[in-house]
């Protein structure tokens, strides 16, 4: 009877190792070649050639790092890949350039004023590359031992044994550390560094002594020597911190006074000024370097007139990042006013932006995107089914047809099929309404729904 329980435990372990699939997780870059020409299908991007080329040019501006405070607006109908382009830019910039992504509605909060939230995201998008002495632990993992409590709930306890060529030490692990160890998938034989202050784990590679011929491993597995000397070292590391992080470090109320101050999360402007002058000082002394990043505001039409006028001003500061915005609105009301304006953005701000527009996908492109999504979700689909799905995508929307992939795959699995075919697609198409069919349905049966008389009143008034 012991065998099934063992198997069950194995299953639980596996779950943490599966990556979740998001709407844009198939995107790995902008898909441009060295001459900034867009390849038709590359790095998960399909079509939208002109917009991607434009984004590539913007990327070069960002990489050069000289120009501050430019604004770019990506405008287009829903489902034409605006967010995908922004994600692609973030991927192409790499991890060292700060890329902050927010949605327009995120800044409305009771805790913080709108402008404070905007300022914070602005400052999150400016990096400072600076040399700092930190304490790190560098060694080869001998053993990771994580004990779950017998009851199944409660805190896990863990033990980590690390070694260098000269010594060996056992560490106790807290909850946070256990999580990041499992996230990094660190196991015995890996060489890791742990930043003591932040608890950040970086995997350097596998130990040479653990290299075996019969081990199956990916192409990117690197072999490194076991470190020498002491496990804990003080090391000067160059890393990029954002201005916002420096703000937070310096604004925390210290000592017992912290108990009395209600922490609103707002940072005093004096602190910011102080930091700005300090950073300028470091820059002059050659101690630090500014890395301007990107702030991406999705659904920018959700900002109101106050935010827009704040943006006007903020873009002029020489510490401003590159601002990328995306909207799917046409000529519409500016939030907080009675005026209408293109994209719901005041003309004076629009004047400071360059606009990239995306156009609806063609049939061929939709087919390609659906194919990529099938691969990403590990779904086998017959050619006929894909053609049908493409037609659905053309007539309804791309998002709807992408959602049908997952549903159709489940239907297919239930009938024990290996490949999604036309019948599965038809089945889910009848099960789930798309937006236009749902509207049609509502129009027909309006009378039977609740509160339907309200709309009549509104129309008459």
């Amino acid at each position, binding site marked *: 009877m012991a065998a099934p329980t063992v198997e069950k435990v194995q299953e639980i372990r596996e779950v943490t190792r599966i990556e979740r699939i998001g709407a844009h997780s198939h995107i790995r870059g902008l898909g441009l070649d060295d001459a900034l020409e867009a390849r038709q299908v590359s790095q998960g991007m399909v079509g939208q050639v002109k917009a991607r080329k434009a984004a590539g040019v913007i990327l070069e501006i960002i990489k050069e790092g000289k120009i501050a405070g430019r604004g770019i607006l990506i405008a287009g109908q829903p489902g034409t890949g605006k967010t995908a382009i922004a994600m692609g830019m973030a991927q192409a910039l790499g991890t060292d350039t700060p890329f902050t992504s927010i949605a327009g509605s995120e800044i409305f909060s009771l805790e913080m004023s709108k402008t404070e939230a905007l300022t914070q995201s602005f400052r999150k998008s400016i990096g400072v590359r*600076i*040399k*700092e*002495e930190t304490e790190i*632990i560098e060694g080869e993992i001998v053993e990771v031992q994580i004990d779950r409590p017998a009851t199944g709930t409660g805190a896990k306890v863990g*033990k*980590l044994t690390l*070694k*260098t*060529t*000269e*010594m*060996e*030490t*056992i*560490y*106790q*692990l*807290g*909850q*946070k*550390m256990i999580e*990041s160890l499992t996230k990094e998938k660190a196991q015995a034989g890996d060489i890791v560094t*742990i930043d*003591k202050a932040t*608890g950040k784990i970086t995997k350097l590679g596998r130990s040479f002594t653990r290299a075996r011929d019969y081990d199956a491993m990916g192409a990117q597995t690197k072999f490194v020597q076991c470190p020498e*000397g*002491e496990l804990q070292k003080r090391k000067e590391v160059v890393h990029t*911190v954002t201005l916002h*992080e*420096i703000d937070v*470090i*310096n604004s*925390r109320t*210290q000592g017992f006074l912290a108990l009395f101050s209600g922490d609103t999360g707002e940072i005093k402007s004096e602190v910011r000024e102080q*930091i700005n002058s*300090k950073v300028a000082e470091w820059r002059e002394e050659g101690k630090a370097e500014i890395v301007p990043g990107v702030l991406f505001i999705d659904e920018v039409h959700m900002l109101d007139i106050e935010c827009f006028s704040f943006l006007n001003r903020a873009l002029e500061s020489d510490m401003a990042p590159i601002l990328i915005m995306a909207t799917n609105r046409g000529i519409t009301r500016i939030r907080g006013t009675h005026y209408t304006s293109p994209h719901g953005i005041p003309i004076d701000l629009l004047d400071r932006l360059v606009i990239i527009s995306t156009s609806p996908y063609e049939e061929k492109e939709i087919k390609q995107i659906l194919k990529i999504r099938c691969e990403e979700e590990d779904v086998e689909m017959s050619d006929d089914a894909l053609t049908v799905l493409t037609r659905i995508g053309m007539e309804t929307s791309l998002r709807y047809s992408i959602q049908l992939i997952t549903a159709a795959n489940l239907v297919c699995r239930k009938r024990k099929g290996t490949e999604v075919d036309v019948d599965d697609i038809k089945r889910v198409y009848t099960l789930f309404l798309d937006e236009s069919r749902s509207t049609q349905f509502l129009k027909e049966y309006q009378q039977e729904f609740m509160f339907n008389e309200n709309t009549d009143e509104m129309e008459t008034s």
Partner: protein
Amino acid sequence: MAELWINKLVSAQKTCLVQDNKRKIHFTFSDGTELVEEYDIKSDELLVRKWKKKSTLGGVGKWEIEVGEQPSQFNLEIDGLAESTANPVFVRKDTKTNFQWRIRNLPYPLDNYKVTAKPDQGKVVISTVNKKYYKTFEIPDLARCGLPLEQEPLEIAHANSTLLISYKKPPAFLAVEKKLQQEFKKLKASKDGDVDCAPS
């Protein structure tokens, strides 16, 4: 060199307190660095010396203990990672004539350890034959007074799972120490317990 150190201490802003038979002195230097020293009031032995420096980005650092031992109060949930209590513990505790270091939880016999001074790096290296423990440390007192590090005054002993390393204080250093003690005795110390608190 020794003069520099003495001047630095004398010119720093100082607060002195006598409590539990210890003379506790708190120094604040011009760059914001803080130093705390505790001396036994009878024998003038140094019990604790710890530093607190500001980090590059402006955050407050932690106390770094140079001499003496403090009950470690880490929070596993906040720090995320801590050395297990079964590991060797490295503590410095000086006597009148020697700098002394104790490493507890080291059960291996005496011939397992090699302690060498590396004068060119200003560091002492402890290594083990069985590759279980390795440590390099400095003697900041010598560096501050500009005195050389040598192999000769180093001695090691082992008992009760503890490795004891001593380094004989050079005469020049003893002189500096004596001078500093005289300075400290001049400090007006507020006594614990009878703080002026005149209720008006």
